């Protein structure tokens, strides 16, 4: 009788302990990030506007800003990120093997990747579509004129398969010339080995802007031949870390929706009466606790990078060097597809 009472008490104590510990429980990825003091982020080897290092070795871009926002939310400092440049072949293995904590490298979400790679797709940060770029002097106006032509493409991407699908559907018999490195594929196009270069439309804009000698000599054809939802990926089996990355992105989106910006985030902390804004900034409910973070997590992320709209404008938007239109990447209430799950 006594023993069983003790046992029962012990079980209850353990249960209470577990329950109270639950909200603060962090996954093993978060634990190792905290002890290491750094988020390790897999990024592109060099795609201007999304992930590229400048001459001083400073990484910038939309994908890079996601890493910075996550680091600010988790470690309190957006600079505590180690960037690992990965090419298309290396990226999944690097994430699977634990070399990087998060893969933020304009990677398309597909069923095969979701189901067979042991990875989780977090949230879409850029809705893209695959397009073609050709020299203006070729007088090609539509992708359907590419019959029997050579097209340069980087290997190991969804791009390669989309090209084949499109070529088959339209009976074009396109000949792909496949390069392992992005730079090699771009060079082959610019030297005239291929009549066209294909990748995501955002990538085409980036290449045209950064690599072409005279950007105006190249046009991007009107056809978009695929859907390419791009966003960060994390390893399976660590749901806590998965949730953190996902909700930092949703937080950035919701911050834009409710007008929280890099500039006004500090003043809104004290002045805002909007319940949604107060939740985002952690001044009413403690949303961070549920993720294993503190209540300032989202405020710090916004302070570091600005909201999603600011990240977009700065890196790829109409006023940036890339000059991409906001298009489908606008907020849902402005005719776009960006629809954050509510931070609550």
């Amino acid at each position, binding site marked *: 009788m006594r023993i069983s009472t003790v046992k029962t008490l012990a079980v209850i104590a353990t249960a209470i302990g577990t329950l109270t510990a639950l909200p603060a429980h962090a996954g093993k990825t978060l634990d190792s990030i905290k002890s290491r003091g750094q988020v390790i982020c897999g990024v592109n080897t060099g795609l201007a506007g999304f992930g590229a290092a400048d001459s001083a070795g400073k990484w910038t871009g939309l994908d890079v800003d996601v890493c910075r926002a996550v680091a600010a939310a988790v470690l309190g400092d957006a600079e505590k990120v180690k960037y690992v440049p990965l090419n298309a072949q290396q990226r999944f293995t690097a994430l699977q093997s634990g070399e990087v904590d998060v893969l933020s490298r304009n990677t398309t979400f597909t069923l095969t990747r979701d189901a067979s790679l*042991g990875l989780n797709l977090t949230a879409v940060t850029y809705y893209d579509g695959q397009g073609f770029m050709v020299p203006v002097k*070729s007088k090609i106006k539509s992708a359907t004129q590419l019959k029997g032509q050579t097209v340069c493409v980087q290997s*190991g991407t969804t791009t390669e*398969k989309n090209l084949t699908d499109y070529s088959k559907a339209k009976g074009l018999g396109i000949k792909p010339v496949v390069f392992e490195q992005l730079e090699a594929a771009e060079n082959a196009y610019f030297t005239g080995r291929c009549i066209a270069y294909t990748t995501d439309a955002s990538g085409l804009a980036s290449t045209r802007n950064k690599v072409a000698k005279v950007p105006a000599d190249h046009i991007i054809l009107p056809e978009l031949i695929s859907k390419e939802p791009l966003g960060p990926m994390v390893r399976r089996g660590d749901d806590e870390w998965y949730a953190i990355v996902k909700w930092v992105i949703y937080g950035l989106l919701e911050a834009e929706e409710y007008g929280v910006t890099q500039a006004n985030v500090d003043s809104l902390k004290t002045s805002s009466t909007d319940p949604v804004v107060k939740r985002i900034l952690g001044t009413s409910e403690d949303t961070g606790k549920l993720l294993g973070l503190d209540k300032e997590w989202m405020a710090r992320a916004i302070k570091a990078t600005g909201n999603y709209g600011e990240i977009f404008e700065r890196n790829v938007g109409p006023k940036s060097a890339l000059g991409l239109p906001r298009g489908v990447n606008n907020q849902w209430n402005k005719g776009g597809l960006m629809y954050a799950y509510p931070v609550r």
Partner: protein
Amino acid sequence: MSSDTPPSHHHWSWRSQAFRGIVYQVLAVVAIVAVVWFLAHNTLVNMRVRGIQSGFDFLSQAAGFDIGESLYPFDSEQPYWQAFLVGVTNTLRVAIVGIILSTVLGTLLGIGRFSRNALVRGVCLSYVEAFRNIPVLLQLLMWYVILTEVLPSADVAWQVGDFFLSKGGLNYPIPVWAAGQLWAAFGLLAGVALVLLYRRWAKRQFEATGQLRSAFWVPVLILVACSLAGWALGGAPTELNRPVKGDFAIENGGALTPEFLAVLIGLTLYTASFIAEVVRGGIASVPRGQGEAASALGLSQQQEMRLVMLPQALRVIIPPLTNQYLNLTKNSSLAVAIGYPDVVSIANTALNQTGRAVECISLVMLVYLITSLGTSLLMGWYNSRAAIKER
């Protein structure tokens, strides 16, 4: 022989050297097997834990991607294993042609190092030193840049007759297959038989009279004449599939892409410099007196090289030559850098479409292992033929 050589009959005891030798070998094998099993098991368990799918079942699924060049038609609906096969044939194509060309070039360069003409010696020396000492990847990239940057675009391609050279590669006419060409093939076969007969006759003549018959020009003449005769008998089909200028590319005819040409030229020139050194070493290993004896017998310089020096040098040359053949085949994997769809390039694509990294990499390793062992076997067999027959 040292004094403590074991006796010819072994005492099977724990202290016998032979017994311990066997025990150590068995232990070593067990240790290796255990390590390999542990690594494989560990990998599989970890992949399963992380939800990564594994297995070779993907090989039978449709590949879903096109391949730029292939020796035989490949469609994206064909399975992955056939895509791999295209990669393997592309690798073998560049390796085999490269081995033949680099052997010819390397042998000429190696012999050139012994020329009595200082200019020829100098050119051969500088060639070897230049090409041997620049990394092969850089050379491949250089040739690719030259082919795609310097050559004109297809609409203003350089043209000689029906041959076009442009950024799109080398386009050439190919004969359209007609029944008459079967006769030409028969003619060629008959020519080969005639050449064999001629060589037997020439050898007998040499043994009987000491007169040497031409060993090159006469056989070539026989082959050409027989093929032509067969072709004429078959009704002399002359229809050609000629390349023509299209809007952006040269169409029809046969074509060698700049990717293939760059890999082939790069590997050939690089490997030839090593083969030249191998040949030079082999010739240098033949005692001087052999050459002097040959000229004392009144053999010309050509005959001295062909009949006295090279046959003896071959024994030294073949083993290191095998290494160069293996190197060329393995170096062809660098083709992935310049967009030639070799087996590595195709495996890379397959790896990314399916996520089966371990499987794809091991398949590529297996392909190179098989081709390399095959080359070694073939060369080993040739080596045993060329070796001195000791009776």
